[in-house]
């Protein structure tokens, strides 16, 4: 009994593989009906299955394949022509064979799958190739699931590899079977785990030996190190599978879906031999099929529309895979209708996912990102194939879960490219070990851009504060800072000690999250290490800042930080929600004491702005400055914000449209109060200083409250309220007291009262 089970299993595995090949060959045959070679291969495959199932006494399967074989032999001998009905009936036969095989796999018997209608259909085609053999039989088995893209049921070629204890499939050409053996996936998984342990032990020994002086020991350890690395590479290579394996089912997906949608799609696949870890391949499968369906269902237009647009009737869908930057890039590219960013913006607003102001502020590339929002859909055009909840957020989530990213590029009328960037392997990653509050944490090296030492004697850069948020100036850009102690709620926060004495050197890891870049303040940077990622319990993943755990060389456990998680956890609070809520708008503080932001205006004039009044600093491109009614405005976070320039005499400067704006980036200071925001154009941000009210001298009013000495130079203190009124006369309309404009005394009184 045991040996016969074995034979059945072999038969199943072999047949599944053959059927995958068959699917591809049949679709290829449709394009190339006369190919004797393809026909012979298809014939041989069916013949093999028929022969084996006769031997194993699977009667239904035998009669079904026998009928198919008869049809194929006529085709092969040129007695009949390959056409659409013939392909359809053959594909249905292949599907039925699969169903029977699945039944044999699960229950050991053929089950009661109806083969007679299929056999009838084959006979009908045989009798008269002109009659469509399968009127409306199963056709390509298309389900209309909730108005989504027709869910073309794709028989899963990976069924045998789904469970443990089933063999690995080696895809690829029919030949080359001699040099390959089948290995149980669980054996490979075990090997991988053990190699992981070996790498850890190797790290530990390297550490122990590091201090010792015995040359022989050092040599032995180096050899061990080398062998462990090679073994790791070897086992990882054994787990690699070409992505072409995944693509094998795509021709069928595309063909069936295109037929259902009435489009013509030519599928091209480039770089199918690019290899990925099998666990990753498995994880990429569904997102990839989703994108391909989207491309065929939404992207590529029907032939008439295409002709109207001056494009060839058949669309081209290209799947491309290649290595780039230590990652595997998988592209799904169509030459279809493209994505209309305005429609996306409208849909996002209609769904209540974004406000019109937010949408208006987004550049085109970020509008495309809206596609990945949970709950997003293009409800504007619900047809049978256009989705209601297309679920691109699921694609995004799935890919992000394996440490990958999704990008999209699109040009209206020219097509869309989806680009998945996927790490090569999951199990072992390169990481940087940092220390904070006496514990060590690892940061995946792919997220780390650089390290910066700020503060201290030698360094030019110091941590500054915009509102409550610490920032660092890095090559002209403002880098928001997050203290790891703050994130983890550990005592002794370094990042927020703004009243603390002169800081010693602060170590900042510049990290790249999904969308934003930020600096993480840590205590020390220790080392880089190849670490083995160990999963952590789901409830700890829920904390949102840990991606896993690992064992370090000394055997201690270290947590792996989730950079994206930290970004969304910390940055939202600091930056995205920096705007005060209407109704709880803080009073504009008077320019008395506290810290001031010293900026240079035109003519190198130094002006100090109370820091507490500053919402943030922004750099806007010259092209972003627009003109409305003779006034300059910029778009900032979905709102139109007046831009105030102060000229030499610190009065308002009248600008004319298309005037003498310098063609370079403009630095602006943003003031926000309640719902109103104005931007003040400045030449340069000079410093942040402590203002000493004792040094103030009364100035002549207007936009200047006082003048004072800061950093040894006379500096004018700006009356923020006045400046804001210049930009937006209604700025203070909501003030009941009707404070007279520009009166410092009143201003202070208002500030004090609140």
């Amino acid at each position, binding site marked *: 009994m045991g040996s016969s089970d074995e034979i059945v299993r072999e038969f199943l595995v072999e047949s599944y593989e053959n059927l995958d090949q068959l699917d591809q060959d049949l679709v290829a045959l449709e394009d190339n009906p006369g190919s004797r070679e393809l026909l012979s291969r298809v014939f041989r495959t069916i013949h093999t299955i028929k022969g084996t199932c006769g031997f194993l006494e699977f009667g239904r399967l035998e009669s079904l394949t026998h009928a198919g074989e008869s049809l194929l032999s006529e085709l092969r001998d040129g007695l009949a022509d390959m056409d659409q009905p013939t392909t359809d009936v053959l594909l249905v036969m292949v599907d039925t064979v699969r169903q029977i095989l699945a039944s044999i796999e699960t229950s050991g018997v053929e089950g009661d799958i109806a083969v007679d209608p299929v056999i009838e259909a084959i006979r009908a085609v045989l009798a008269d190739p002109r009659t469509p053999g399968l009127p409306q039989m199963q056709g390509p088995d298309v389900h209309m699931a909730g108005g989504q893209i027709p869910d073309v049921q794709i028989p899963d070629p990976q069924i045998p590899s789904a469970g443990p204890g089933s063999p690995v499939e080696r895809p690829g050409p029919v030949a080359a079977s001699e040099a390959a053996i089948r290995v149980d996936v669980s054996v490979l998984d075990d090997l991988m785990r053990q190699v992981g342990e070996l790498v850890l032990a190797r790290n530990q020994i390297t550490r122990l030996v590091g201090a010792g002086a015995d040359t022989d020991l050092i040599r032995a350890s180096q050899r061990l190190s080398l062998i462990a690395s090679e073994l790791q590479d070897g086992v990882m290579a054994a787990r690699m599978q070409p992505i072409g394996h995944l693509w094998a089912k795509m021709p069928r997906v595309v063909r069936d879906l295109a037929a259902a949608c009435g489009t013509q799609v030519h599928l091209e696949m480039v770089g199918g031999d690019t290899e990925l870890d099998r666990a990753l391949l498995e994880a990429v499968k569904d997102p990839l099929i989703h994108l391909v369906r989207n491309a065929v269902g939404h992207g590529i237009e029907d032939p008439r529309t295409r002709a109207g647009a001056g494009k060839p009737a058949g669309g081209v869908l290209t799947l491309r895979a290649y290595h780039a930057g230590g990652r595997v890039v998988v592209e799904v590219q169509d030459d279809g209708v493209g994505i209309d960013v305005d429609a996306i913006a409208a849909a996002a607003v209609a769904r209540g996912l974004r406000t019109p102001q937010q949408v208006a502020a987004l550049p085109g590339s970020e509008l495309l990102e809206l596609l990945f929002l949970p709950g997003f859909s293009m409800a504007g055009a619900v047809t049978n194939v256009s989705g209601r909840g297309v679920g691109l957020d699921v694609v*995004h989530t799935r890919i*992000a879960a394996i440490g990958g990213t999704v990008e999209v590029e699109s040009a209206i009328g020219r097509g869309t490219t989806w680009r998945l960037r996927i790490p090569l392997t999951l199990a072992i990653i390169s990481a940087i070990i940092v220390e904070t509050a006496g514990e060590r944490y690892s940061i995946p090296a792919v997220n780390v851009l650089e390290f910066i030492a700020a503060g201290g004697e030698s360094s030019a850069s110091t941590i500054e504060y915009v509102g409550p948020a610490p920032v660092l100036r890095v090559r002209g850009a403002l880098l928001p800072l997050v203290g790891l102690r703050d994130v983890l709620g550990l005592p002794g926060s370094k990042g927020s000690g703004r009243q603390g004495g002169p800081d010693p050197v602060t170590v900042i890891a510049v990290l790249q999250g999904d969308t934003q870049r930020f600096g993480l303040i840590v205590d020390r940077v220790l080392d880089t290490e190849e670490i083995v990622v160990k999963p952590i319990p789901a409830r700890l993943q829920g904390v949102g800042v840990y991606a896993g755990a690992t064992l370090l060389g000394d055997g*201690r456990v270290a947590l792996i930080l989730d950079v994206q998680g930290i970004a969304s956890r910390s940055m939202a609070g600091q930056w995205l929600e920096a705007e005060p809520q209407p109704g709880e708008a803080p009073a504009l503080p008077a320019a008395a004491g506290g810290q001031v932001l010293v900026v240079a205006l035109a003519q190198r004039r130094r002006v100090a702005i109370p820091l507490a009044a500053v919402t943030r600093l922004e750099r806007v491109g010259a092209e972003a400055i627009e003109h409305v009614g003779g006034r300059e405005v910029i778009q900032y976070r979905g709102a139109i914000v007046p831009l105030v320039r102060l000229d030499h005499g610190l009065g308002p400067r009248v600008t004319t449209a298309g005037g003498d704006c310098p063609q370079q980036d403009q630095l602006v200071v943003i003031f926000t109060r309640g719902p109103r925001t104005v931007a003040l154009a400045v030449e340069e941000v000079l410093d942040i200083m402590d203002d000493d009210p004792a040094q103030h001298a009364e100035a002549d009013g207007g936009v200047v409250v006082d003048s004072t000495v800061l950093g040894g130079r006379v500096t004018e203190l700006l009356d923020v309220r006045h400046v804001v009124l210049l930009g937006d006369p209604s700025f203070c309309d909501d003030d009941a007291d009707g404070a007279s404009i520009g009166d410092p005394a009143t201003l202070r009184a208002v500030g004090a009262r609140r």
Partner: protein
Amino acid sequence: MSSQLVTFTLAGARYGVDMLRVQEALRGPARTTIPLAGPGVAGFVNLRGQVVLTIDLRARLGIQAPAGDHEQMMVVVQVEGQPVGLLVDDVGDVVDVADRALQAPPDTLATSSRELLSGVYQLQDYLLLALDLDRVIGAGASPPVDTQNPTRSTP
């Protein structure tokens, strides 16, 4: 029917867990604390190459932390197929108890710790509190899990 319980002490009281769930007991190895994991989570330890979560039973049961720096022991139990470490004061004997001797825990216990016990055995010399492992390790030992999009929480 009788079952065997592995006993241990916490602040003088004796507790027991089903021996079939206990993998081993050892001196507490070096722990890595997990910030933000919530009370009751003592950290991760390296158990022969495996990263094992440990639970601080004192915190979990609402008992004060030990006064001195008495080295705690770790009882490794299996929960849902995963090893989990429990920090205890001392590990005691294995005792045989009759299943029908299990009584409801006294009502005077605080509800929070009452629901972590499956009951009390009255033994000759002492009372044995039987721990309900699944409740001890399960919900409540950590903050609520946010399964909905932990990564993309754009406002």
